[in-house]
């Protein structure tokens, strides 16, 4: 019985199991990010994203990936505000496959995450949690891998957790005028690399800073920017 339980919790390795980490990748649909991560996000496992603040583009980083997957559930656990269905749908995310879970306690959140992964009907899970312990991370990692799922763990610290935590990838994000500054701290056994910039201007031109808008071509000079202080005080 005890052995069985240990085995279930992956604390005991059996020879017949596939050895070595899963090296398969899936595209993030950001060309330079894919190049930087040698093919994109891991196929399965737990990815830690240290965001610092909300609203810097952390979800836009994931939207192109999520928009590609319509077969299984995408489960969001404890987002810091209401998930705007209009925005999700605009970005191509299938709301019929989106499930939202809110839990009273961090334990329940982790329990839900594990149940969801283990059910086998979830392909992506986005979890907001301040911290994870090593066993918790391990359990999520295994549940994700066993069920062909990818879990993004977002937290508000600017710095990532300690390297002791068993995750597939560990990244920290910071805002840029045109997108995100991304530091990879760990990526499935690769060595940490120099930072990378994710350009979101092409996908969300109106959310980029005007300073980096390409200079208007001469023929467009008659164009007058409508956005300006003069329009602020309309009656």
């Amino acid at each position, binding site marked *: 019985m005890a052995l069985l339980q240990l085995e279930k919790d992956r604390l005991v390795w059996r020879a017949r199991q596939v050895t070595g980490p899963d090296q398969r990748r899936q595209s993030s649909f950001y060309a330079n990010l894919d190049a930087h991560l040698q093919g994109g996000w891991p196929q399965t496992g737990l990815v830690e994203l240290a965001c610092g*603040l909300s609203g*810097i583009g952390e979800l836009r980083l994931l939207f192109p990936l999520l928009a590609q997957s319509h077969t299984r559930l995408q489960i969001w656990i404890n987002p810091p505000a209401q998930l*705007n269905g*209009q925005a999700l749908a605009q970005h191509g995310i299938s709301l019929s496959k989106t499930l939202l879970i809110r839990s009273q306690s961090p334990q329940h959140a982790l329990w839900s995450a594990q149940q969801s992964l*283990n059910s086998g*009907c979830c392909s992506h899970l986005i979890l907001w949690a301040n911290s994870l312990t090593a066993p918790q991370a391990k359990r999520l990692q295994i549940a994700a891998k066993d*069920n062909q799922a990818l879990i993004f763990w977002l937290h508000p610290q600017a710095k990532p957790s300690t390297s002791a935590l068993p995750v597939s990838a560990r990244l920290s994000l910071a805002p840029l005028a045109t997108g995100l500054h991304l530091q990879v701290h760990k990526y499935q056994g690769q060595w940490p690399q120099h930072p990378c910039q994710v350009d979101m201007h092409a996908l*969300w031109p109106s959310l980029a800073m005007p300073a980096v808008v390409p200079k208007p071509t001469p023929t467009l000079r008659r164009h007058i920017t409508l956005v300006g202080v003069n329009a602020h005080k309309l009656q």
Partner: protein
Amino acid sequence: MQWLYLHFSSLQLDSLLYQQAYHQACVLVDKNQVVQANAEALQMGIKTGTGLAHAALLCAQIKVVAYDAKKEHRLLSQLAQCLYQTSATFYLDPPQGLLLQTSDMLRLYEGIEGYWQQLQHPLIERGLNYHYASAHSPLAAKVLAYAGNDRLLKHPRQVHRLLSQLSIQHALLDPKLALQLERLGLNTLGQAQALPKSALGQRLGKTLVTYLHQLEDTSAPAKPAYQPPERFRQRLELLYEIEHSSALRFPLKRLLTDLEAFLAPRQLRVAGLSLGLNYREHEAQKMHVGCNDGEYRAEAWLSLFLLKLEQLRLPAPIIAISLTTKGQMPWAPLSAQLFEPTQGKLTTGQLISRLQSKLGDHAVQQVYLRDDHRPERSFYQGMPQSHYPSQQATTFLRPSLLFTLPQALHHKPDQHWCMLSGPERIQSGWWDNVNICRDYFIARNPYGQVCWLFRTPTQGWFLHGYFS
């Protein structure tokens, strides 16, 4: 054979008024015509068949409700369920009638009067208006009941006499046929009956002849008699008192096994179960467990119950448990996109049930869209549905995270902010009195967050969400 017909001439209206104790003129209207009227309305000179306009002239303060045949049918079934306690064999005759076979009941109640006494109770209790008649044939009973006969006739002779005096207009014939008869000077049923059936048939068609035959036909209608709905309901008195919830597992399993045995041969599943817990010296409790796409297996239900029972603390020892079902459905698998089983482990529905059992029903939700310019009303979170409605999203750029309550900014956005777009003015919502007037801007704050801000006409600034 002996038949009794009950005609509830204002079933829907009576039920409506009985619940609400309404004492003013009230009518049900179908296609601008009064179909049912209460006593107060009748008093004002309003009758069935009165046009709505005319009714309104007669009584300006009249309350008008739309007639709904479906609703009335449902009421009739409910009534039938209740009458099933006193009568064994009877037939629904929607929308307003019940036909009871009385012969068998007479022995039981020692005569028709005794039976009638019993039968009337629930009708009176529910404040129903009804007319009745008994006769040797179902049709004769019905015709006489509709004519407001209100008598228990024992001899066919009496029935014949009353029928023959009945005006053709009240004989429940097709109105066209009734008119045809009248225009031959045949004003009563008796006058028509006096003519040779063959001569009538030659001229007025088979329907009339069949009708005349049926008036004499004592046999039961060619449809199944009323059957109460089959629902599982079982109570289990415990042999011993249980003090810990974990000990409930075994008796519960027994009930669930019975349930499975009940459902399986009927090819049924149920969407929810209600477990009644009867305590010694404490008020009984009920515990509900649901499984959205239906389940019949004892094992599956047990695992759901156990999750709930874990959290249960017993206020007193349990002496009995009972199980009732809700939402019976056929076995056939649903074709819902959300609930397709994947990877052979759990279906989505099962996952949702499991999560809800532990976290509460409202902790697991889906996001639905709504067409509304007002941002907070353009989507909502609700219980997962097996059929997700297909909807179009707006083309206006919207933030992915939206605050339930906009947060007031203490300072106006200054030069450290960067305005990216706007204003987008949203001024809408007069119809439900939640009118908003806001100028929205997309702006980047000094920390690099892309914010959705709005300004109100009083120049107050609010943060409403992030383009995360």
